[in-house]
């Protein structure tokens, strides 16, 4: 569904992505692992249209989306739950959800979806008029996911959704990922927490220093080595 070919993105002179190629299969959960600084968030932001790649192509359902504005990409059915959640701090939970549906015009459909979010995330329902900036980390994560879902995306990108959350909440996050996937949403997940990620993923990639160095399916390779590299990066003594 999502095809990324030779994407290179730079911050000024620093080349964060050096030519990344990978594919996200429709209806599956694909996971991107990698140590800090590998470029995972950069890749997510590039796909979502926030950053423009120096070269390469990003195709969603065979349509080229690299170079499109982020607004147009959301309209095409792709939504990103960003690293650090990035909720609208001065707006209420309700307004955050409304913002998530910005590209939609069907008022009744939007209202239905809001109710659906409230039943899926009861804690958000309790705090619907509360300012998002005052929510706890876990609640903000729920909100960020719910907000992204408001655009009824066909593919959901999630950048380190378990970051900074207590273990119980981490489990809840991954449960949500599995549930969403079961409902038909394609998921592309970036994670540092390789253990949990490999439990839900159908396929994964390892990103190290701006390049994909490994691709495979859980259970079919030496997981320990991969997990080690995901956390620590390739050891310098290796060739």
């Amino acid at each position, binding site marked *: 569904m999502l095809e990324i070919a030779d994407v290179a993105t730079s911050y000024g002179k620093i080349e964060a992505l050096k030519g990344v190629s990978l594919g996200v299969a429709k209806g599956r959960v694909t996971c991107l692992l990698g140590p800090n600084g590998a470029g995972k968030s950069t890749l997510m932001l590039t796909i*979502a*249209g*926030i950053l423009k790649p120096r070269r390469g192509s990003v195709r969603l359902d065979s349509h080229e989306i690299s170079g499109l*504005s*982020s*607004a147009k990409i*959301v*309209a095409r059915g792709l*939504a*990103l739950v*960003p690293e650090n959640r*990035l*909720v*609208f*701090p*001065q*707006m209420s939970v309700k*307004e955050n959800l*409304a*913002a*998530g549906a*910005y*590209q939609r015009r069907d008022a009744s459909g939007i209202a239905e979806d809001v109710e659906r979010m409230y039943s899926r995330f009861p804690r958000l329902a309790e705090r619907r008029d509360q300012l998002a900036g005052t929510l706890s980390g876990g609640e903000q994560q729920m909100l960020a996911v719910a*907000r*992204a879902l*408001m*655009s009824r995306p066909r593919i959901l990108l999630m950048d380190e959704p378990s970051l900074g959350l207590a273990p119980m909440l981490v489990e809840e996050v991954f449960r949500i990922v599995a549930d969403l996937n079961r409902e038909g949403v394609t998921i592309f997940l970036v994670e540092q927490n390789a253990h949990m990620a490999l439990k839900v993923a159908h396929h994964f990639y390892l990103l190290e220093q701006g390049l994909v160095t490994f691709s495979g399916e859980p259970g079919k390779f030496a997981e320990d080595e991969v997990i080690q590299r995901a956390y620590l990066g390739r050891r310098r003594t290796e060739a």
Partner: protein
Amino acid sequence: MSNLTIDLVQNTIDGVMVGSSYALLALGFTLIFGTMRRLNLAYGPTIMAGAYLGAYAFLHLGIGAFPVAVLVLVGAALAGLYVERLCFRPFAQTAAMASMVSSFAVWMQIEEAASLALPRHLNVFPALVSGSLGLGPLFVRLDHVLMLVIAAAATLVVHWALYRTRFGLGVRTVIDHRRAAALVGVPVRRILLLAFVLASAVGGLAGFLIAASEAQITPMFGMWATTKGLIAMMLGGLGSVPGALVGGLTLGIIEAQAQWLLGPHLRDLVAWGVLFAVLALWPGGLMGAAAVDDATAVQRRV
């Protein structure tokens, strides 16, 4: 009521009347600052461009106050469009200074263009109604009442636009967190442009009301409007919409009292002094404590 009380109340009434226009000025300024996160030094001049367009038409075509008002708004909106495209759109988030100096350059452009169009210092501007209303020992100018009513109506319209329309939702998301806005599908660039033009039009309305109440306009108007808008905005709290209203009314009242008590010179001294004191003691302004950290964190990037 004692004479002192009567004077104080009268000044407060006058202050509120003028303050309502200051509030509109501050509202426009705040909308631009909130979305752009940088200072538009050409704000007053864009309003002046509209006002001069209106004055020019009034002088040469003899049209009435209402068509002049429309021209002023349109002129200010168009000038705002020019400023946004030239001074704000081309610059990255980190080039705040360049943006500001660029808006200063356009300020110079507009001032010269205005004096070319209407070379005289004092230029006639259509007045609104004349006459005044007596309420016991107090009196109110009718055109001031009209100003207050129009300003209040405009504020309500802006409030409605911000809180009850999709466009307004977009503007508020951009003000709150620009990147998150982009991620949820808000067309950030387009919203920035539209908000800028709207803010310029709001300023234009304020400019029309003020020029009409004075029945004249001078080339000093640009700087004057920028100054008043800036003081009112900072008093109320940077980037805060309710703050703009509070700041504008407060400034109007302070000026009216100071002028009556100390004369026109010291009135300006008091206004600046109050602003300085508010900044030194309550950087967040009278309303917007949260706005400080965000704005200063961003503005640190020179």
